[in-house]
Structure formats: structure tokens, C-alpha cells
């Protein structure tokens, strides 16, 4: 009897261990809530810093393109327009290229080992820092495309998009370097979602006599669409927030122009350029622009997450 009692006693957990357990759990809880705190902190800090500019210019800030620290007049239309145009046009080029490449490496056109090498190579490229891409864009891409831009201007100059004489850095180059950055993202996500489509579907389509591309267009792509869409939205968010490569190649001019061959601005390149030496109400206006950028990317991101949840594969 005595023996049993001590055994029972020994089994009891020490009070100190219980406390450690509770402390451990609560520490983990606090650490995980840091994410929420930082996220809210970012939103609140950027919003309150932009308050001065917000109350002064209101929504007019979004539609005027005057950016004049001397006269203390600020409007971010050029930068907002540049952000939207560069990100959407680069996506327009990237989607067919990326999805086409993804189809190429998920079908069996070439041996598996070749496809895997191509796939992992593309993924590796996502790891190259954007500032290095910017350097490459300045010294390799810009001279390479110069003649092509002159050609574009000479023959299509009547289209407002190509109406200015190309002189060095411009928005079109920014779009092209964004394509290089987004391709790995779109390709790898599209490849993953194409790979997730069950083999049964493909075999069923082949079985009733569909050709390879009929199968791809009518069965595989629709089944993988939600994943591809989510990847595209992620890429869109990335394109809007992308700073370094764009800043280095877009030319950084606040003069508004419809032409892609003239220097432009994006919100992030404006921040990168001016934040260091801004003061007074210019700082507040830059925070306002940052707030706009944040809202844009938040909306795109949340929409992407909603899309994934709503339409995720149900096979």
C-alpha cells in the first residue's frame, strides 16, 4: 500500500513543470499574435502619417498629377497610373508566356528530366534579387531594345502609347523587366496547379476521343483555373509593389504622359526616390501614396486568398 502511494506521488507532475507548460503555450500565443500586431501597426502608422496630406488634398490627391515640393502641391495621379499600367501590361504579357511554359513542362513533349531541370531553373530565377535585375536592365536590356523602340515610335507613333521619342529609360522597359520578374511566379504556380489536376480527368477526355489540346483547353485548364488565377493575382500584387528594378529603369519623371516610351513613375519608385530627402508636407504626401499602394496590394491579396478558398480543387 505504502509503495503504491509513493509511485502515485512520483507520477504527479511537478508544479514547476506545469507552470513551464503554461508559460510556453502563452509565449507561443503572444509570438503568433505579433503578425497581427505588425500588420495592424503598418496600416495604422502609414494611415496616421498620411493624415495631414489626406485632410488637405482629400481624394483630389488621387486624380491630380502636380507634385511640386516648392509650391507645396501634391497629387499622385502619375504614379498611380504608372503603377497600374506597368503592372497590368506586364501581367498581360506574362500570363500567356507563363501558362504556355507551364503547359510545356507539365505535358510530355520532352523527357521528364529536361522538364524538371527547366522547372527548377525557372524557380531559381525567382530568387534573384530585383536590384540585380535592375542593374541588368540598365546595362543590357536598355541598349538591346533601343533600336526596337525607335522602330516602334517611327511606325506606330500615331498611337498615343508610342507617341514620344524614346530617350533612354522608359515605362516600357519597366514593363519588360517586370515580365522577367513575374514569369517565374506565374509559371511555377501554374505548373503546380496543372500538376494537381487528377490523371483520371485527362484519361477520361482521351478515352472519349479528345485530342491533346482539346483535353488541355476543355478539361485541364478549366480544372486548374482557380490555382492559376490565384497565382496571377499574387503576381499582380508583386508587380504593384515591386520597387528596385522598376525604379532603376523607369526613368522617374512625374510629368504625365500616355506614352510608354516616355519616362514614368510608380508609387513604389516615387517612395524609393524621394523618401530619403523629403520633409514637411512632402513626407505626409509620400505616406499618403504609400497608403494607396498598400490598399491596392491588400485588396489584390485578399481577393487572391478568397479565390483560393472559394474555388480550390474539389476532386
Amino acid at each position, binding site marked *: 500500500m505504502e509503495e503504491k502511494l509513493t509511485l502515485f506521488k512520483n507520477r504527479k507532475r511537478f508544479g514547476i513543470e506545469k507552470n513551464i507548460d503554461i508559460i510556453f503555450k502563452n509565449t507561443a500565443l503572444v509570438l*503568433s*499574435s505579433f503578425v497581427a500586431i505588425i500588420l495592424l501597426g503598418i496600416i495604422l502608422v502609414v494611415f496616421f502619417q498620411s493624415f495631414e496630406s489626406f485632410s488637405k488634398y482629400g481624394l483630389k490627391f488621387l486624380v491630380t498629377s502636380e507634385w511640386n515640393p516648392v509650391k507645396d502641391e501634391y497629387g499622385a495621379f502619375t504614379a498611380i497610373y504608372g503603377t497600374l499600367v506597368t503592372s497590368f501590361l506586364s501581367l498581360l504579357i506574362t500570363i500567356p508566356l507563363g501558362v*504556355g511554359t507551364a503547359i510545356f513542362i507539365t505535358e510530355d513533349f520532352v523527357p521528364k528530366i529536361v522538364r524538371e531541370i527547366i522547372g527548377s531553373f525557372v524557380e531559381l530565377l525567382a530568387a534573384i534579387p530585383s536590384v540585380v535585375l535592375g542593374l541588368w536592365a540598365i546595362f543590357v536590356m536598355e541598349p538591346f531594345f533601343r533600336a526596337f523602340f525607335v522602330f516602334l515610335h517611327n511606325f506606330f507613333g500615331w498611337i498615343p502609347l508610342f507617341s514620344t521619342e524614346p530617350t533612354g529609360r522608359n515605362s516600357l522597359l519597366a514593363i519588360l523587366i517586370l515580365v522577367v520578374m513575374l514569369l517565374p511566379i506565374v509559371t511555377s504556380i501554374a505548373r503546380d496547379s496543372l500538376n494537381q489536376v487528377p490523371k483520371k480527368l485527362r484519361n477520361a477526355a482521351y478515352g472519349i476521343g479528345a485530342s491533346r489540346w482539346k483535353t488541355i483547353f476543355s478539361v485541364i485548364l478549366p480544372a486548374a483555373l482557380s490555382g492559376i488565377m490565384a497565382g496571377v493575382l499574387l503576381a499582380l500584387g508583386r508587380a504593384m509593389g515591386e520597387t528596385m528594378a522598376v525604379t532603376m529603369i523607369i526613368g522617374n519623371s512625374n510629368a504625365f504622359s500616355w506614352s510608354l516610351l516616355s519616362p514614368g513613375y510608380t508609387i513604389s519608385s516615387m517612395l524609393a526616390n524621394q523618401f530619403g530627402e523629403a520633409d514637411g508636407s512632402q513626407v505626409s504626401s509620400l505616406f499618403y501614396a504609400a497608403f494607396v499602394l498598400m490598399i491596392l496590394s491588400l485588396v489584390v491579396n485578399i481577393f487572391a486568398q478568397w479565390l483560393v478558398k472559394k474555388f480550390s480543387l474539389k476532386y
Partner: protein
Amino acid sequence: MNSLYYQKRLSRNIGDKFFTSLSVICALIAILPLIFLVTYILIKGGSQITPELFTLEPNPPGDDLDAGGINPALIGTLIITTIASIIAIPVGVGGGIYLAEYSKGGAFSRFIRFGVNVLAGVPSIIAGVFIYALIVSTKILFGSMYSGLAGGMALSILMLPTVIKTTDEGLKLVPNELRYASLGVGASMYTTILKVTLPSAFRSIATGVVLGIARAAGETAPLIFTALFSYYYITGFGDLFYEMGSLAVLIYNFALEPYDAQNKLAWAASFILVLSILSVNIFSRILAAFTEKTKRV
């Protein structure tokens, strides 16, 4: 009878050929510039590498033909990335442990997971703007404005979502039987996590974290107005509170200089940065491939 054989002229077969060649063209257009880009960076940058590069300070841009080296930027990148890791890894691993081990899929954990995804999508320059407002402009760090410490904090914001996500997903892959066994022999929850689940998920977590660090090492946008840049050697602990150079910012600054010597320095710095990031990536991929079929997400 004929219909049993492959007929080239059939419109479906012509269409198939057409789309197949289209996808091959897409793949070529996508991959060739990328191959060109990598080889160009490696060759152009590699040809600038000299021993002095690693030991000298960069000279201020000017007509000076000798650009000097990138020692302060190299050390600066190491220091800033280390600071970011010191902040982001404990917070991220702790948060991931809570999500994977303690939370029961309630509103709180769903909100945190959602927040992690949102934070991962926040543009990197916004992290810089945030730290600028919070730390640089308020001079909260003992009166210093631009500092390596502030730069490290900005980078840690970018690393945090990656670390949490990989910890969360790595722990979720650990089979529940291990947890039951450990709890069944009387171990407490924290012993189970520290001695059983974390060690068995260690490889996948470490891979994700290392990739996150490699990504942060190349980030520029959060540093340009938090850590700024410095031309001078880092000599001691106190330098943490002053402007600090980094490879990424060096590339940005010197790429925009009109002088050839500085541009060459930028190429050399990109070579070092790209080579180290790529080798970390390749190495961790090989490691991941050799270990189990951990599902990458």
C-alpha cells in the same frame, strides 16, 4: 479502314501541332532571356572579382579610376541579415508552433494564418516606410536615425511570414502518432514539442528558414531609407547605431552612378550576391530532395 491511322491533314491534328509549337515557343521566349540573364551576371560580375574587393572600402564616386572594394557592404549585409534572423526566427517559429500545435482551427488561428498571407504580400518598400516612421524618424533607438539595426528590423518584417509558414506547415507534416506516443508516456506538451515534434520537422523548417534568409539578403527597398549606406569599415558594436552599407544598396547606388569604376563594383557585388543566393537555394533543394518527400507548398 483509313480512320485507324494517324491522319496529318485532319484539322484536329493540325490544331494540335499548332498549339504544341506555340507552347514550345512560349517556353523558349520565357527561358532564353532567363538563361542569358544568369550567365551574363555570372560572367560580367565574375570578371570583376579581385582579392582587394573583399578587403577595401569603396571610394566615393568621382573621376577616381580606382573604385576600391566592397568590404563594408559585405559585412553590412551579413550583420543586417543576422539582426533580421535574430528577430524573425524566434518570433516566427514560436508563432508557427502555436498555429500548428496549440490552435484548434478557431477564429484566432484562422485570422493569424490570413494575416501571415497578407503580410507576405505587403510590398517590401512598405516595410521600409513603416520602420522609417516608427524608428528612424522618431530616433527611438538612443537618438540614432538611420542605422543597421533599423534596417535589420525592416528585413525581419519581410522574413516573418516565411518563417511562420514553414514552421506551421513543417509541424503539420509530423504524424500525430508521435505526439500521442510522447504524451502517452507522460511527457508534457512543451517537452513533446521541443523534444519530439520540432526535431522531426527540423529539416523542412530549416530549409524554409534558410530560403527566407537568402531572400531577405537580396532585398533593397526596405534598406534604402532605414539602413541607408556607408562607405566606411564597420569597426565595432557601436556601428550598429549608424548608417550601414549593404550589397543590395551598393548595387542600387553604384548602378546609377555615371562612372565606369562604380558600375563595375556594382557588377562585382551582384556576382557575390547572386552566387551566394543561388548556391543556398540549390543546396537546400538538394537537401530537401534527399530527405523525405516533404511536400513543398
